[in-house]
């Protein structure tokens, strides 16, 4: 009889995984979608009950705003794609810098990673929003930098820090004997990293990376705080334009449903990949 049950190990393992990827694991199930749907129907009911005689029906109201909200959602997605792309590329370099043989590079990368992981996402968002210029002039050509690009960069920073930890963790999870075997076959360090170690890491990195992406997508609503016209901002605008009591639950559950429909397959796939990897172990 072991002193502690498998539950203890599971908990510790998930805590360590969380620490490694910097993001908690999303656990989305169809039941969540069903619950959101119920909340939405309930919200519609409340709104209908509180409607004044001259108000249009709640569904008509939501339908009216849907194209605008969809445009906002497209913005959320665009921000998430670009932030993820930038954060991933930068994170890769930072991750490899963290295992560099040059102490200065290693320490610098370690500090950078900690700095951006410890800073709240919202503060980083503000940082980029306010400190990046609204336009740059290169060779006499003035290029405007719209707000949403700045927000994207602001979100890419924590993504970078988290990706770098995912990369470092995955590299260090490869047994040192693989490095030794490669060395004894006369591979140099660069070749070993890129041809032997890194390809083995990809499978391990994919689940936490996808989880991070789902978290990032949900975090794009933070951009509403700094005034980017994404879905949450537009929802608030729609609500104030309607100026009707009781619309709140219907609208917010509607927004959440959109996010659920988008994130659910990703979360599901992540869990599947993780399970497959765990079996292979």
């Amino acid at each position: 009889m072991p002193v502690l049950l498998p539950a203890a190990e599971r908990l510790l393992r998930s805590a360590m995984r969380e620490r490694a990827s910097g993001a908690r694991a999303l656990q989305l199930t169809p039941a969540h979608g069903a619950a959101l749907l119920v909340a939405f129907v309930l919200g519609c009911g409340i709104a209908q009950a509180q409607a004044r005689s001259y108000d249009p029906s709640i569904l008509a109201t939501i339908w009216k705003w849907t194209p605008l909200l969809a445009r906002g959602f497209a913005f959320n997605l665009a921000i998430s794609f670009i932030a993820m792309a930038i954060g991933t590329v930068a994170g890769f370099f930072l991750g490899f810098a963290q295992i560099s043989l040059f102490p200065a590079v290693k320490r610098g990368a370690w500090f950078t990673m900690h700095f951006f992981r410890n800073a709240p996402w919202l503060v980083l968002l503000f940082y980029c929003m306010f400190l990046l210029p609204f336009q740059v002039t290169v060779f006499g050509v003035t290029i405007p930098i719209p707000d949403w690009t700045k927000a994207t960069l602001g979100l890419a920073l924590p993504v970078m820090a988290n990706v770098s930890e995912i990369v470092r963790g995955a590299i260090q999870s490869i047994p040192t004997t693989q490095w030794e075997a490669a060395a004894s076959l006369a591979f140099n360090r660069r070749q070993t990293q890129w041809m032997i170690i890194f390809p083995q890491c990809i499978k391990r990195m994919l689940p936490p990376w996808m989880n991070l992406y789902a978290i990032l997508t949900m975090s794009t609503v933070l951009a509403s705080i700094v005034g980017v016209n994404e879905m949450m901002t537009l929802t608030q605008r729609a609500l104030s334009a309607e100026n009707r009591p009781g619309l709140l639950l219907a609208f917010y559950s509607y927004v959440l449903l959109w996010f659920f429909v988008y994130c659910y397959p990703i979360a599901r796939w992540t869990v599947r990949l993780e399970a497959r990897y765990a079996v292979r172990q």
Partner: protein
Amino acid sequence: MQPVWDWFRWLYGATGINLTVFYDPFDRARFASGFVMTVELSAVCIVLSIVIGVLGAWIQGSRLRVARTVVHWYIQAFRNTPPLVQLYFFYFGLGGLLRGVGGSGPVVSNVTWAIVSLSFFAGAFNVEIFRSGIEAVPRTTVEAAESLGFSRMQTYLRIVFPLAFRISLPALNNNLVNLVKTTTLAYAIAVPEMLYVSSQVWSDELNVPEMMNVLLICYFLLVGILVYVMHRWERALRVPGFGI
């Protein structure tokens, strides 16, 4: 402290780096109150979320099916929606309803709503963490304690809880560190915490870059210290012979 403040005034004159939060008494007091608010918010939410976690874990172990289901749905709802949406839900949704009932003025302040919302957010994770921690203590250990004459309460207080807590600590720490970072969201409902007062300072003094850096460093230190202390604590409490 006066020479330090004077040095920052001199710095402004000499380099243009305008750190009003150091040399201007009014800004200094403002920023300090924001810092204190962030720390208070974090501390209160940490305590409340732990209380929620313990209660929730206890209910989940109870025989009342209805109560278990309620807790289950609470966890599911709060761990899978963005905390910002939760905050809006409490402040605008519930707060709005209460306002509708109570008349003109807000019945519950925005600070309270932030505390309630953030505590429930982190609490949802804590319930799961504590429950797993309790599950990890084998039934035979409990039986051994009972056969040694411990009462049910004593068994919980002296055996199950200390063990479960040690097992839960790493996951709990992750969650609490995350909670402290999430307190910045209170900005969205105008709670005067560090981010909010900083934005007030920079819009009055037009020193955005300086304030941004002060803010970033403050959070880095705050969270960094928390992480460090928690990890030390974790190491001190680690169950020997158990770990990955």
